[in-house]
């Protein structure tokens, strides 16, 4: 087991919501347990988006330090902690990506990644597709039209604005924002039908 990832005997049985309330009372051990549970997911998403482990660690640190400083921003009634943290990680990674310097670094990093894992394949969508491990989500994405799927994956995993996606795909901006909205609704409906959309 990697260092820092040993489960806490005292906190291992507590729910995420209980641990967040403990964080509000300055319990560092509760914070560590939350990091143990969700740190790898946050780091994995940031790595995927930024293509750079050093910058991804900055996002990891930023997300958890903000949780420590603002535990009240997590509202258990509105969803799971992991979703909350991943949303933070995505948003902060995208902010980082949208500086030109960061984007250049990412492009460089992705080239290395492709060369290592997928030589000759320069399709971002395909790369993302292969990384997706959830069969249910994969099936739900597969049920979308190709245009909806492409727009959503480029925006979410590529970090592009819908305007940039429209330029890349040579489609009107209105078409792309429509595909994203409709596609997400279809995805949400399928996920709910499969029991993955329920909110706690």
């Amino acid at each position: 087991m990697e260092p820092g990832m040993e489960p806490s005997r005292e906190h291992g049985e507590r729910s995420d919501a209980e641990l967040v309330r403990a964080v509000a009372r300055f319990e560092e051990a509760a914070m560590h347990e939350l990091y143990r549970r969700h740190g790898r997911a946050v780091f994995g998403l940031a790595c995927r988006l930024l293509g750079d482990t050093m910058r991804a660690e900055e996002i990891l640190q930023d997300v958890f330090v903000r949780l420590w400083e603002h535990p009240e921003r997590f509202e258990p009634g509105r969803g799971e902690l992991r979703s909350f943290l991943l949303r933070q990680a995505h948003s902060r990674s995208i902010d980082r990506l949208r500086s030109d310097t960061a984007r250049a670094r990412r492009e460089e990093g992705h080239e290395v990644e492709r060369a290592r894992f997928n030589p000759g394949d320069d399709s971002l969508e395909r790369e993302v597709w292969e990384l997706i491990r959830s069969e249910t989500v994969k099936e739900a994405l597969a049920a979308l039209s190709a245009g909806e799927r492409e727009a959503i994956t480029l925006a979410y995993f590529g970090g592009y604005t819908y305007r940039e996606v429209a330029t890349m795909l040579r489609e009107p901006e209105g078409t792309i924002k429509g595909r994203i909205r409709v596609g997400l609704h279809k995805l949400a409906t399928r996920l709910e039908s499969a029991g993955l959309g329920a909110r706690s």
Partner: protein
Amino acid sequence: MSAHAPLDELLGAYALDALDETERRAIEEHLEQSAEARAELRQLRIAVDALGATERDASCPEGAWDRIHAAITDGPDRDLPVLHLPATARRHRPPRLVAAALALAAALVVGLGLGAAVHRGQAPSNEAAVERLADAALKDTNARVGTLAGEGTPAVRVVVEPGGHGYLFGGDLPSLPPGRTYQLWTLDGAAPVSLAVLGPNPRIVPFSAGAAATTLAITDEAAPGAAVPGSAPLAVGTLA
């Protein structure tokens, strides 16, 4: 068709963080006003959250937790022991319109003495004793806790015991220039009421909030403090 249809069309892109800054601000204002838009966003986020969760977990870099731990303990609470308490408090977002309400109330309020509730934030004569008392308040499971937050201001934690005695952990606040001071207010009544003048460089500051105080705010005022807030709050939060 909704009068806000053009904005609603951007909700999908907003859920994916795929808007530029101007559009993002417009959507966030729209969301504050439209329950329908908020409901649609909740639905869209079911899909977006699933996309995020599809990514492979990655082993965190060696030492990552140590660096996070150092960052979170390098604050106002760094000298406090790790606490092991049953969690009882429920927390809520700070109210969105409190800043505007505070500004309005400040314009209406009639001169308030700072009164007996004011505690000077400059280095207490026995800092260790204050820290022990604050630590005891944190250990009191009946005490209410809150985080005062604001754009560009480090989070400030407060704890208030059932009797109304409170402690503010202000060590992360940046030092103010000479002639300025932080000031703590309660916003529960018709007008803001001063709870404490915190000084230009507060650390752990005791104050008396009254048992019913719920919404607190910090402002930056001219020393030695103001009877009514002279500016919008730097940070606002609720006790729960």
